[in-house]
């Protein structure tokens, strides 16, 4: 199975410019997240606190629906699922 992680433009510089990262064989959100930051280590500091939790300012969506923090990292993923990260911005 393959899932896709979508990165907004603000995070792409930390992932070698990639906007979509395809991951094979990951069937949980936690596993996919580990695989993502292993492939792109500089994303770790942008997404995860020192304890390894997703920052509160980063919204996580699976197939465009928000993933509750209580459901991380065990949330199961299915083939073709798209995980999106949307960090808060404050510019006006």
């Amino acid at each position, binding site marked *: 199975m393959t899932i896709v992680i979508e990165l*907004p*433009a*603000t995070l*792409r*510089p*930390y992932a*070698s*410019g990639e*906007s979509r990262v395809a991951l094979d064989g990951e069937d949980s959100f936690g596993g996919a997240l580990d695989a993502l930051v292993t492939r792109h280590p*500089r994303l770790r*500091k*942008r997404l995860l606190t020192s304890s390894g939790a997703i*920052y*509160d*300012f980063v*919204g996580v*969506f699976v197939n*465009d*629906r*928000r993933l*509750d923090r209580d459901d991380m990292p065990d949330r199961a993923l299915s083939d073709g699922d798209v995980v*999106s990260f*949307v*960090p*808060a*911005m*404050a*510019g*006006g």
Partner: protein
Amino acid sequence: MDGSAPPTMPELTQDETRRYGRQLVLSQIGPDGQRRLKGARVLVVGSGGLGSPVLLYLAAAGIGHLGIVDFDIVDMSNLHRQVLFTDADVDRSKTESAAERLRAQNPHLSFAVHEARIDADNAAGLVSGHDVVVDGTDNFAARYVINDACVRAGVPNVSASILRFEAQVSVFDPARGGPCYRCVFPAPPPAGLAPSCAEAGVVGVLPGIAGTLQANEVIKLVCGIGTPLAGRLLTFDALDARFRTFEVARDRGCVACGDAADPARPLGLNPEAAPATCHAAAIPEMTVEALSRSLAEGTAPLLVDVRGEAERGIAAIPGCTAMPLDTIEIAADALPTGRTILCICHKGGRSITAARTLRELGFDDVASLAGGVDAWAARIDPSVARY
């Protein structure tokens, strides 16, 4: 607002009927909708990039009363996106300049100017008495303060934010079932993880796109038409010309709007995640003399020339890696970690920006060459051209 109980619906004058004719013929708006717009009181916080189009379009649409909150003065660097203002407004109060422009645009409206920085002490008073609030501010502290005041007053918050080529827009309206800003983003980012537009840049048309979307949501809310952008977070990527819509729901455990939220409790910001001030530690600078010595001693840092090809062709310090500033975020992958990186440009300005970008990318040991190639030519190697 749900459109069923507008605060007032004043009659339209003949002049107003002529002015708003193209809107009046829309069945979804019509005379009743236009009267609702005339009776509406909307508070716009921030009259900058987002506030400019919001105010211009809401004034043009006939929102009867507009409150404008800003503490800033107009700077020349605002003009590429803050289309309310002209060169003549530079160094003038934004609120006064905005009100003057808007009065000229539509004399049928009333305006209240609040020359203040919104904060936890004044937010409730500013929000009070308004039907809709528009958040066009440029910092997280203000966004949480506006959210909390709107939640407690039961007023919809039409929110947008922008950075570089990306925008986010939503309507936070928990009084009618949707989430609030804290439901979606419970805490602001730690310092340094969220650069401001001043640091990261913003393309000028982006607040125009996001701000007009905000104005559209205000009109929908006031008139009670369409489907508000509540419960949805709209994102726009200007480079890909791509809109996305993400579903967001109210968090029943939210400290602001959740089931156990205490209206009397000050909320503030999560102390573990201080608001991003975007004033990161200063970038160290190296003099050209120190660079010359380190080159002679074989201890020089990695030299990265952040100018474009044309400038490098005019004058350069030998041994530099070329990495133009506009591509450095991507190209930085090729840089080694564990070695000091010295950014070099013409006169030492862009190199500080480049060094700051590299630091954001996780390169901790970065510096900038003070005075750049020009200082090198003037003080170290006269054979290098000055331009």
